Each structure stands twice: as structure tokens, then as C-alpha cells.
């Protein structure tokens, strides 16, 4: 059973000191626009879910009307900051003791009158039904617990990368996050509440409870309370973690004197749980009994889970329920049991947001008319607490925050675009975007955390500078600094808080925090200025390239892309040079480039390939605005077009650093087309297409791309993928395997990373790859 009834430790009261004030800035955010509520009340924790809309400032660029062009002065295009409304899901978890205070707060801040019902699930829902109805004036509508659980589970598995993890107590990193397999079904969910429910999930709507067991969390708790002086669940786990089960259990070696070798049973294996306590004249310590009990129950659940997994031929088994909920002790014993019974064939999987599944599911039940499953959602790192390692010595909730009452949050943003895999990934299920997992690499983690910390002043400065006319910008920027610093500190202690820690996640978290404090595009004006300057040189650059011999031109084009890529405000080394020396130009960049042979150099193979037939279609993931896109990428694209290759230019949907966004690129391309008949005709004939990638990150996750892009890639029979820049081709996708030819080009603008890769500052990566067994390109 998933249910966990009311328990004595919590019966003290569910009311609390009314003088506790809630921190409205942090908890119950955007309550003014909240609609659709759902609540999941468990044995000790309440999980509240609501849907709300968030007003965001977004930077929009718009081409000036040609008739009024003169009036715009020397501006390339118009940058307007607009208010945009986006949808966000809020989930908050707090102890049942605070439920009344929270309901009062919600009532005071709830202005939306449309809301009439609140979906409720969980064992405690009936108990608080009357209170909720009275306080909120909403009708409580109960939903089946298991249905909610499964709905929630499907939702997080589909929408949150790195949701599932394997727990390894003694490994370098306790949490090993799993890559999201696009196909999440079928799977087995073992929910360990007071009893155990084993559910086979076959599709979004099809699941079946195939079995269960009465030996579950309630058995541990109930027997533990009878056998020891400890009466609380958490404390019993803590007790167990200090015990020695071998004084209570009869081991194989107690019977055999050693191992039972012919069956492969080792001496330390438990032959009979509590087998040594069958005596009236011996005392056993509470710790030892609790440990024996924990092993007995974990092993039993693990064994049954394996038997069901085997019978139904399922290899993905997720564990949840209050017995698991972030407790390292039980995650370890369950993992151990699964390894033992399946000889490592099945891995026990756990979920980062396991505690929220019921609330998410109940919410989704109530929001079916909004079709939430039609959209892609993304975890908002700025508004989510992240996974806490629950040391048995500490109450998880007490660690979450200090000062106010403890709570935990998850926020998910509805994305404008539906995200899917790049169809050209060789194996989507094993694709990992990130090159280095900082959760596992402590040295790299230390470097990057410090690097981001040191860069923070500059980011704050730039954010303030981007809003010169707004006096309170400095104050907001300071709040941003505090928030991001806090995140970095959290990650220092809990690198696994948001899944695998990577350079990408650090960058994305920064973008989320900037957005949170209404700095939607701190680089907008810089980008505009750079674009403007670069456009002036475009014709000259193209002309000088055309004067070169074919072979020299191919090399010059590649050097151009690489030199253009040196212009990058995202990299510390470069932004310093750019800010101190505005004269640092394209030619200077070329001079700075490493001479061939480069650090990674397959230019000769690329040149050889170019002597062959043209590619059908090239997909080009672009990077920075300014010199990079205009003087580096565009001439390269122009050459491809001239060869007869169609080109799809994929750029960011939303701003990130000085990366060119899709809307900026639209304007730039039009301007270039006006100067260059090659680009102009390609554009008109649809041989050059601009698409957005669905992301607002300086990095690139090829498993979460705009659906339109994926369709186009398929339609055009794309046979070449080009990825440019450090964020997209080195921090991510360096090892990405594609099913077609690929070209990864980047300049390493970070001396630490250069060092790591065996190069030096401004080393060049030029990686041209043809998939093995792809046959001869045609």
C-alpha cells in the first residue's frame, strides 16, 4: 500500500504557533496568479501543487521598418523589453504540522476566483478534508493515490533529465544519474509505504498493480517501535545505521563455519534473520536489532521486486515511498539486495523528485483540459531546492532552510516548444550531452565552481549595465548575486542536487537566476553593437575569400569560423581582452590561433571530403553573435550553399550570454542577403533555413531539441552536422556520436580546460568524424 497513515509522532498537533511568518518571497511564489491546486498529504509531509503564470521581462529584437529607418539613427535593430507570461508549476513540500498556517497564507493571497476545487490524494487527505474546505472554500476532490503516483512518475521521467539515479554508497559520487531514455515504458515501480505495491507501467494510461507485500515501511517502523526504545521512523533508521546485524542474525558461516561454496553462498550471507535472538537469556542492543530489521525488510522487498521484474521481463525498476525518500540507508540496502538477487542484471533506480509524484499526478488529473502532457517542461534551477543528501543524523527538512520554517520546492517551467531527440543521434538511449561529469570529477568540480564564483562580479556588472535607465537594477542584480552564490555553495556541498553537475548545468542555473531577477538579456546591446560592426566587414571578407584558390579558401573559411569563435564574452580570458582592448579584431584573433597541426586536427580529411560530392543538407549549430556568426559562419555557409548543399542554421530560442538568438539571426541574415546574392537566393529558394533549437542555454543538449528542427532535419535528409563553439562542441557533445558526418569546431578559451585537454590557450579543436560503417559518402 502506498498509504501511510497518521502516526503517533505527528499527532501532537497539526496546528502550530501562528506567530511563525512565512517567507512569501520564497515559498508560495506567484500565488496571485495561482489556479488549479492539488495536495498530497502523507503520513508526515504535505505536498502542495499549483499552476501559476509568471510575468517575465523578455528582450525582443525587431527590425526597423525601412520607411522609418533614418529615424532609428545608427541602430541595427530595435531591442524592446516586453512582458511575457509563461506558465509555471509550483510544488512545495512541508511538514504536516504547518498545514494550517499554509492554508491561511494561501487564502489570504488567493485572488483567482475561477478555482473551485482542489485535487487531493495521499493517506492524510481525508483527515484534512474538512480543514481545507473550510479554510480555502474549495471543494476537495479525492483522486486515487496509485493513479496519481504513476502519472507523476511518468511526468518527471519524461520532463526532467537526470531524474533517475543509481545509488552507490561507496563510490566517488553517491548518485549516478541516468541518461533519459526517450522511451520510458515499460517500467516497474515499487512503492514502499507502510506496505509495498508493485506496479507495472506500460504506457501513459496503462498500469497494473501486479503484486505487493505487507512487509514494508510500516513493518520496519512497527516492529522497530516494539523492539527498541525508539519510536520515530527517522530515528529508527539512524539507529539501524549504527548497528551490527551479525549479532542478531544467523549467518551462513554460523551454520557452516564458513561459506556454502557449492551454492555460491558466502559466509556473511544472512541465513536466518533474527536467528540468533531465539533465546531468552541474551540481551541485544537496539542498534543491532534495528539493523537486522532493516536488512530483513530491504532484502525481502528487493527479492520480491526481482521476482516480479523477472516474471514480467522488466529491467527498469524504480523504488519510491516513504521508506526510500532520500534516505541513504534504505537506498543502500535496497540497492544491495537488488544486486544480490539479480547478480547485477537489474539496477535499483531512485528518483530525485520521488516525494512529489503524488502531488504532481493529482495536479495533472485536475489539469487534463489544459493538456499539460502536450508540452515539454523544464526544471527551473533557480526556484527548485534540489536533492538533499539526507544524512541519518539530520532531518532533511531542517537542512533546507534556516530562519523560517523548513520547506522544499520544485518549480517547472512550461517550455514554448516541444522538445525531442535529434534524429541523427547514433544511440539516443546512451547519449550523454556533457563531456565532464563534475559530480564524479572532484578536481574539475572545484575548478569550475571557483571559476563561476569569480566570474560572478562581472556578470553582475554586466547585468546592471544592461539596464542603465532602471534605478533598482543594481538592487536586483545584488539579489541575483546572492541567489546564484547560494546555489554554488549548495552545489559545493551537494554536487548531485540537480542531477549530474556539469558546466552546462552551472551555466543554465545562472541563466535561470538572471531571468528570475528580470535580467532577460544582459548582452543585448553588446550583441547589437558587435553585429553592426561585423556587418560592415562582411562584403570585404567575402571578397577576399573569393580571391583565394579553392584549396586556400577552404582553409581560410575554417580559420575564419575558428577566429570568429574567439569572440566570446562567455569565456573569462576573452571577455577580459575584449573589455580592455576594443581594437582586438578579427585579424588579431586569427593571429592568436594556434598554428596547425591543431590540438585536434582532422582538417586534411575534411578537405579530402570536400573534393568529393556535396552534402545534401548541413545542420549548423551556431554560437556567438557579431564577428563569429557574420564573418566566420556566414562565409562558411555561403561556400556550402555554393557547393549545392542545403543549410539549416540552428540558433538559440532565447538569449544566453552573447550567443546569437534566432530572432537576431533572422534580421542579420536579411541584412546579409541584401548585400549578397548567394545568400539572398538561397534564402528565397529555401536552401538556407533558419530554425530555433528550443533552448536558451550556452550549451547544447541534442536530446532536447525543438520538434520543428527535428522534423526539418528528417525532411531534408540531413547528412552533415556542424557544431561550433566551446559550450556546444567541447563542454557538451565532444563525444557525441552521430549517425551522419559531423564537424565539431571550437577554440579553447579557458586555460584550465586547455591544460586538461593537453593543449594551451587558443588551442583549436577541429574534429571531423564519419560514423563507422557508414560506407562511402556519396
Amino acid at each position, binding site marked *: 500500500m502506498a498509504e501511510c497513515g497518521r502516526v503517533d509522532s505527528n499527532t501532537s498537533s497539526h496546528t502550530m504557533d501562528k506567530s511563525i511568518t512565512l517567507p512569501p518571497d520564497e515559498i508560495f511564489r506567484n500565488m496571485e496568479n495561482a489556479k488549479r491546486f492539488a495536495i498530497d498529504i502523507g503520513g508526515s509531509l504535505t505536498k502542495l501543487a499549483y499552476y501559476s503564470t509568471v510575468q517575465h521581462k523578455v528582450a525582443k529584437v525587431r527590425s526597423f521598418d525601412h520607411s522609418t529607418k533614418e529615424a532609428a539613427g545608427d541602430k541595427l535593430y530595435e531591442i524592446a523589453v516586453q512582458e511575457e507570461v509563461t506558465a509555471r508549476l509550483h510544488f512545495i513540500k512541508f511538514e504536516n504540522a504547518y498545514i494550517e498556517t499554509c492554508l491561511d497564507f494561501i487564502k489570504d493571497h488567493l485572488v483567482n476566483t475561477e478555482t473551485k476545487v482542489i485535487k487531493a490524494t495521499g493517506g492524510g487527505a481525508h483527515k484534512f478534508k474538512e480543514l481545507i474546505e473550510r479554510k480555502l472554500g474549495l471543494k476537495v476532490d479525492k483522486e486515487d493515490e496509485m493513479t496519481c503516483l504513476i502519472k507523476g512518475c511518468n511526468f518527471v521521467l519524461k520532463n526532467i533529465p537526470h531524474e533517475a539515479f543509481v545509488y552507490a554508497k561507496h563510490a566517488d559520487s553517491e548518485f549516478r544519474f541516468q541518461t533519459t531514455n526517450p522511451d520510458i515504458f515499460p517500467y516497474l515501480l515499487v512503492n514502499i509505504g507502510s506496505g509495498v505495491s508493485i506496479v507495472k507501467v506500460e504506457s501513459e494510461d496503462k498500469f497494473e498493480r501486479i503484486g505487493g507485500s505487507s512487509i514494508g515501511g510500516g513493518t520496519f517502523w512497527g516492529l522497530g517501535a516494539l523492539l527498541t526504545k525508539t519510536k520515530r521512523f527517522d530515528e529508527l533508521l539512524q539507529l539501524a545505521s549504527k548497528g551490527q546485524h551479525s549479532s542478531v542474525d544467523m549467518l551462513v558461516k554460523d551454520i557452516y563455519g564458513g561459506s556454502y561454496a557449492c551454492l555460491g553462498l558466502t559466509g556473511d550471507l544472512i541465513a536466518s*534473520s533474527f536467528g540468533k535472538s531465539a533465546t531468552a537469556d541474551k540481551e541485544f542492543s537496539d542498534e543491532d536489532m534495528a539493523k537486522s530489521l532493516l536488512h530483513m525488510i530491504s532484502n525481502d522487498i528487493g527479492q520480491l521486486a526481482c521476482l516480479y521484474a523477472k516474471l514480467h521481463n522488466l529491467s527498469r525498476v524504480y523504488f519510491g515511498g516513504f521508506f526510500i525518500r532520500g534516505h541513504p540507508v534504505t537506498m543502500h540496502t535496497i540497492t544491495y539486495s537488488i544486486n544480490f538477487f539479480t547478480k547485477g542484471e537489474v539496477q535499483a533506480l531512485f528518483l530525485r523528485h520521488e516525494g512529489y509524484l503524488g502531488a504532481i499526478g493529482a495536479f495533472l488529473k485536475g489539469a487534463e483540459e489544459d493538456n499539460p502532457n502536450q508540452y515539454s517542461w523544464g526544471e527551473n534551477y533557480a526556484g527548485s531546492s534540489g536533492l538533499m543528501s539526507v544524512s541519518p543524523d539530520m532531518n532533511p527538512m531542517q537542512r533546507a532552510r534556516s530562519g523560517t520554517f523548513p520547506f522544499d520546492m520544485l518549480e517547472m517551467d512550461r517550455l514554448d516548444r516541444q522538445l525531442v531527440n535529434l534524429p541523427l543521434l547514433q544511440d539516443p538511449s546512451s547519449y550523454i550531452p556533457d563531456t565532464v561529469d563534475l559530480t564524479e570529477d572532484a578536481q574539475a568540480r572545484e575548478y569550475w565552481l571557483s571559476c563561476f564564483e569569480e566570474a560572478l562580479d562581472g556578470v553582475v556588472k554586466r547585468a546592471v549595465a544592461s539596464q542603465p535607465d532602471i534605478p533598482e537594477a543594481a538592487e536586483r542584480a545584488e539579489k541575483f548575486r546572492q541567489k546564484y552564490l547560494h546555489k554554488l555553495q549548495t552545489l559545493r556541498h551537494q554536487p548531485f542536487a540537480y542531477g549530474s553537475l556539469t558546466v552546462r548545468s552551472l551555466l543554465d542555473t545562472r541563466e535561470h537566476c538572471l531571468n528570475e531577477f528580470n535580467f532577460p538579456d544582459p548582452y543585448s546591446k553588446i550583441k547589437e553593437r558587435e553585429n553592426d560592426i561585423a556587418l560592415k566587414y562582411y562584403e570585404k571578407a567575402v571578397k577576399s575569400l573569393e580571391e583565394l584558390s579553392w584549396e586556400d579558401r577552404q582553409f581560410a573559411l575554417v580559420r575564419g569560423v575558428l577566429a570568429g569563435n574567439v569572440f566570446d564574452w562567455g569565456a573569462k580570458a576573452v571577455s577580459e581582452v575584449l573589455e580592455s582592448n576594443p581594437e582586438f579584431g578579427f585579424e588579431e584573433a586569427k593571429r592568436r590561433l594556434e598554428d596547425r597541426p591543431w590540438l585536434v586536427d582532422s582538417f586534411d580529411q575534411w578537405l579530402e571530403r570536400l573534393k568529393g560530392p556535396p552534402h545534401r543538407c548541413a545542420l549548423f549549430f551556431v554560437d556567438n553573435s557579431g564577428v563569429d556568426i557574420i564573418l566566420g559562419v556566414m562565409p562558411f555557409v555561403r561556400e556550402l550553399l555554393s557547393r549545392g548543399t542545403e543549410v539549416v542554421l540552428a540558433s538559440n530560442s532565447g538569449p544566453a550570454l552573447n550567443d546569437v538568438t534566432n530572432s537576431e539571426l533572422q534580421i542579420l541574415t536579411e541584412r546579409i542577403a541584401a548585400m549578397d546574392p548567394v545568400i539572398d537566393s538561397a534564402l528565397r529558394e529555401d536552401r538556407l533555413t533558419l530554425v530555433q533549437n528550443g533552448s536558451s542555454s550556452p550549451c547544447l543538449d541534442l536530446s532536447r531539441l525543438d520538434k520543428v528542427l527535428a522534423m526539418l532535419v528528417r525532411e531534408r535528409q540531413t547528412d552533415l552536422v556542424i557544431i561550433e563553439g566551446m559550450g556546444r562542441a567541447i563542454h557538451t557533445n565532444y563525444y557525441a556520436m552521430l549517425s551522419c558526418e559531423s564537424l565539431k569546431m571550437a577554440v579553447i578559451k579557458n586555460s584550465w580546460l586547455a591544460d586538461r585537454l593537453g593543449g594551451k590557450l587558443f588551442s583549436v579543436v577541429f574534429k571531423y568524424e564519419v560514423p563507422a560503417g557508414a560506407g562511402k559518402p556519396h
Partner: protein
Amino acid sequence: MSHRAFPWFGMDIGGTLVKLVYFEPKDITAEEEQEEVESLRSIRHYLTSNTAYGTTGIRDVHLEMKDLSLCGRTGNLHFIRFPTHDLPVFMQMGRNKHFSSLHTTLCATGGGAYKFESDFRTMADLELHKLDELDCLVRGVLYIDSVITSGPSECYYFENPTDLDHSAQKPYTLENHYPLLLVNIGSGVSILAVYSENNYKRVTGTSLGGGTFLGLCCLLTGCSTFEEALEMASQGESTHVDKLVRDIYGGDYERFGLPGWTVASSFGSMMFKEKRESVSKEDLARATLVTITNNIGSITRMCALNENIERVVFVGNFLRVNILSMKLLAYAMDYWSNGQLKALFLRHEGYFGAVGALLGLLHPS
């Protein structure tokens, strides 16, 4: 034809109990009697004239098999048990009765055959012939089933298992009913899939067995013997201790076809202080018995499904005088399989390993 010298013993030294089978020849000729050494006669006399040995040794007289033909000899097979912790007393007795002078082989199985091998050598001057316990178990089960032709049937099942009050034991013939799932419930549990006398595999096992029942009962109630624990269990009510489906849902959980009486959480009500204060020791003993038994039932059922086997034979000393557990197992097999699975039981429940060891002596393979 074997010419093994008497005495004929088979011994199974488990984690909790030592099981001993002894073949008492009844066809001793006058000539043989003349030649029989004193120590051999003394052992035979001691074992057959008593039903209890020391304070803890017991001969299960009701299980004795009379006029059994074994390797050309006719005699009675006796079934004796004593706690493993009294093994030193047994060894001392063997020494006093000059057992080692008989130059017999003592066939032993169970973990203790390995653990106490050197103790037998030093304390009783005896060399053990060690046999694998699962080989012995399978051999013993199939042998006993094949030789019992009269008297109470060795194998039986419960008719109407879903009506606990009116289910009755009915005889059953195991013969050639392969494949069988053999569940041996001793201190721990082993589950074997048996395809023929010489073809079997251990499917799995669980540490939640008879030792767990007794161990937990001792801790929860202060009792000290299996009989005491069973007696308490027979008087208790497990629903005071467990949380049932109806305690949560007010009735059946229809969405998943779970009847209200299903146990949702074993000992689940013991999370609450007021409930803990109101239960009796008998209730706790009963809940422990039900929990352990049902858990064995579920694991067995899953194994039967995975191995595609429909007949399950439960053996082991956990079932001794434990009609409650047998009925629960019969019920669980029948109910959760919709009548597909049949739970079978054997009268000599805990002695098959020892019988197998004796056969190992007579028919060394």
C-alpha cells in the same frame, strides 16, 4: 546389496536443530546377535527404549516407520531431534558409548557437518562423511514418499483451503509428479525446483524463516521455545497488530481487486503508540507467525510462476505441529493463484535431509 556395518545413522545438523534418523534392524539372526559388540547393542538399546534423551533430545515416535526394508534388511526407522547447541552433549555421549570403535561411517549433512567436523574428530574421535544438504533433502523426500504404502499417507493437502475452519487433510501421491517446487523451511528457507531425482536446482531462498519466527517471538514476548511461541500464536489475533486494507480504505481496494481483509502492512498498526499499548503477547506471536508464513507463501508463489511449476511441497521443521502455518500456506497458494497452485505437505517434515544422509551411507553415488 550393501554390507555396511551397523549402526546405520543419517544426521542433518541445521542452524537450530540436529535431525537424526536411526535404522534399527529387526531381523537380527542369533548368529549376528552372538557377534554383536556390546557398544552396538548398547546404542541400539538406548535409542529404542527411550523417547527422550537428556533434557532436549526427543524421538518422534509417531513418525517411526516400522518393518521397513532397507538394503536387504528389515527394521524400524527412528526419527530423533535435539537442538544444535546440545551437539557437544551428543558427541560426549558418542565418546562414552565408544562409538568410534565400531568403525562405522557417520554420514552427516547440513551446515553443521562442515562447522563441527573437527569437533567430531577431536571430541568423539569420529570422522564425518559430509554430504550436500540439498542432495540429501531431495533424495530423502523422494525415498520416503516411495516407500510408504500403508498407514497415514506421507503426502497430503488441504481440501477447501480457502475455508480455514473446514479444510481437511487429504492424502496425495507424489510419485512422478514432476516438476515439483520443494520449499524447505528451517531456520531459513531454501526453494528448489525438482525435475527428477537427480535433476534439481536451488531457485532462491529467504532469510525470513522459522528462525525469524522464533527469534522475533522471543524478543517480542519473552518466550523461549518454538512450542511456547506456537501456543501463544494460536491464541492471538494478528489483526490487532497488522494494518489491513480495510483499515485504510474502509473496505476492499476495488481498483486493484484487494479484499478488505488483506494485510496491507504487517505490524503496521504498531506505528501507533495507543495500538502498541493495547496488544497482547499472543497477538504479537500470531502476527509474527502470519507475517513469516505469508511472506514465504508469496516468494514461493512467485518462484512457481517464474519456474512454471504447479505443485509445491512444503517441508522443514517450521511446519512441525504448526497446522496454522500449513493452512495459511495452503490458503495463500490457492487464493492468489485462483486455484492453480497446490500446496502439499509431508508428514516427516523436517527429517528428509537426515534420511538422505542415511541413504548416502547405503547407496554411495
